[in-house]
């Protein structure tokens, strides 16, 4: 009797495909939530940096210059 031919190794599947459906759904939800938070943070940082009146890192305003009259 001939020995059974060796089974070729299967390529590794991504983690999301190996998970059961319920866990896969949860995995996708957390990934999307993280993406939404990241997008909101990036958009907030960029728009705030472009504004003249920044909220996160306000521009330091110099004190008004004092006019000194030249000595005669």
């Amino acid at each position: 009797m001939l020995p059974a031919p060796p089974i070729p190794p299967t390529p590794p599947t991504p983690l999301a495909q190996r998970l059961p459906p319920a866990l896969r759904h949860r995995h996708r939800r957390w990934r999307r939530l993280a993406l939404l938070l990241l997008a909101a943070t990036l958009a907030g940082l960029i728009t705030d940096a472009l504004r003249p009146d920044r909220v996160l890192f306000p521009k330091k305003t110099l004190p008004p210059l004092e006019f000194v009259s030249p000595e005669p």
Partner: protein
Amino acid sequence: MSTPASSLPPSPSSARASHPTQATHPAHPSRPSRFTLPVLLVRWTLGLLLLWAGLAKLADPAAFYVNLLTYRLPLLPSGMLRFAAIVFPWLELLTGAGLLLNRWSDAIRPLAVALTALFVLALGQAFLRDLDVSCGCFGRPLFVWTSRPGFALGRALLLFSGALFLHFNRDDLTEAPGQKLESHS
């Protein structure tokens, strides 16, 4: 031998495509959902309100930051409030757009619940401490009384209950747990 398409039993997805207005329960496709129209109305209302609130805050984030300061939220340093003042409007905007377009509902609906719960907590503590704050929820208010903490707290509670209703009742376009609808992703 191939089977003609007309003799095959209709699948839930094809039935959904042939009757786009008829909703089915996500966990039980054969059972129609009772709350299709209410879910649609709540989703659109909440989406529009969040979109409006986000745009109004984006127009003047400095005023929103000043509003946040008047809440005198405990244990929150000024730097964190500044960060919240620039990120919060975008979160509202994304959540509102997601609700209106009904995309990524598995992430958008819990986010809407979390956002509205934060509104309730912030306004609730201001109401209980009798702080004289302006809500600042929708930018500059048309009427002053709409930004009082009592009225704003009632409105926030309504929004929170709407978000919870959306979270626990899904209409026909929502992906069910474990069911992959690639066309919506």
